[in-house]
């Protein structure tokens, strides 16, 4: 039982870490796209 629990905890730990790493990379790339790009009528253009 203990062994199973420790395996489950190891598995979820790995999943969470991996998911977090992918999420962080995606967030960074999204921010990079937002900051580097300058498409017309981006940002608060709706205010006109």
């Amino acid at each position, binding site marked *: 039982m203990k062994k199973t629990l420790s395996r489950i905890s190891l598995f979820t730990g790995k999943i969470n870490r*991996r998911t977090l*790493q*992918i999420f*962080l*990379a*995606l967030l*960074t*790339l*999204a*921010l*990079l*796209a*937002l*900051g*580097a*790009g*300058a*498409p*017309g*009528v*981006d*940002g*608060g*253009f*709706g*205010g*006109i």
Partner: protein
Amino acid sequence: MILLLAVAAGLLAGLARAGIKKKPYREPELSWLWLVILAVAPQLLAFHISATAGWFSDRWASAILVASQLALLGFVWVNRRLTGMKILGLGLVLNLLVISLNNGLMPLTPQTAGALFPELPASTWVTGLRPGRSKNIILPLSETRLAFLSDTILLPAWFPWTRALSAGDLLIALGIFWLLAVEAPLDPVPDQAGNEPSHQS
């Protein structure tokens, strides 16, 4: 928004590639992630968050845009071993070049602005106007330096988000797609005991 589609499309293509090869998907290996957050945060305040965008004059907003893109160029340089980052970096340089030469904002001709907002009268688009809190400045073609690098590429009318793009924007989108779809390494399949072999990209 339009550039965020490249992130979504790149991720989907990368996951499909991992699925075909039956290997777990892994994020591209990037260094100095904190620099992106540090560089883009002032832009978010000056351009994207409506509650704070009003704090910044046009002059400050343009200074923030140039400084922020210079800092992003530093991030690109640190990660230049990746092909996608080289493509993205070229796009960023092109955008930064045309922005720097045109009062620190991305030029948009009155004609293009009129095509984006046909419901508004042509007299709305006076030279030097920064429409809303955008990164754009209205400049006639004759007064735009490096006009071919400005927001001149109009997306088709059927596209859900009507936007004008620059050549730099297209390269940025392609670079991001490449990073997520092609360059993201796939994890080696763990052995039967669950041990992961050392990573090989």
